């Protein structure tokens, strides 16, 4: 079965995010007042496995070993099974 996977990697709460701070200051230059700006990396891919549990286990492993650095990052995994209707359009 095919799954769409989306991994969101963000800095841990409380960690300084210089890129987000710069964006926030730049928005202020244009007159937009915003706060709490964050930047998040999104990595998307497809994977073929028997069930959601298998996908979750493998993608968690990917996050721990490469996609994130557990010292500074949190990650969130979204798994969406590809619906048969999508398969039908092939």
């Amino acid at each position, binding site marked *: 079965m095919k799954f769409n996977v989306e991994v969101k990697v963000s800095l841990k709460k409380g960690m300084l995010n*210089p*890129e987000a701070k710069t964006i926030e200051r730049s928005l202020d230059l244009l007159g937009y007042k915003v706060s709490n700006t964050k930047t998040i990396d999104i990595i998307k891919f497809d994977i073929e496995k028997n069930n959601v549990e298998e996908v979750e286990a493998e993608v968690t492993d990917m996050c721990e070993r490469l*996609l994130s*650095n557990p*010292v*500074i990052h949190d990650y969130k995994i979204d798994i969406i099974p590809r619906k048969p209707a999508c398969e039908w359009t092939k």
Partner: protein
Amino acid sequence: MKIGVIKFPGSNCDRDVYDVLKLVGAKPEYIWWNNKDLTDFDGIVIPGGFSYGDYLRAGSIASITPVIDGIKDLIKEEKPVLGICNGAQILGEIGLIPGVFITNENPKFNCEWVDLKINTTRTPFTKDFKKGKTIKIPVAHAEGRFYTEDVDLLKDQDQIVLQFKDKNPNGSIENITSVCDESGYVCAMMPHPERASDDLLGSKDGLKFFKGFI
């Protein structure tokens, strides 16, 4: 002394490091990223640059290449390993040193001469200095802000090697810019000692780091 200089796609300080190793009397040899048998080598330098275009995070992709297995084998034999700039980021990503180097507080590429304090002389690379001495070596990085979850542990275990003296150009925790592993044989540093290896360049304080291999 046969010292390996690791080359990744995107390494760009490898030739400088090679020349300085020759200057101090070592026998440098380039090692390509896919070579994992490093048994002949007496030490390793992971030079600076932008391995794999800094994709994902600086050093993250280099940290999972075959040559890293070879480096880990050498570390088991207590052979010295020096990671400079991108090399330091790679050692952080592997987890061979305690902490990581992340985007500067002011997120620009910072290229300047800095004064550094020698905080420990127990590593092979700083053994010829006097503890507390100030040296002059340039930095060149955008992702060099040292961060660790437990800085007190590093102090207790004497793992802080270099600290910025007067000015901290990247906002690192406690002005730290170089740390070593528990043994002291693996050292990661953001400043470029190879760029301070001749009076013509403005300083030769960096030479002693390479003499440490001899």
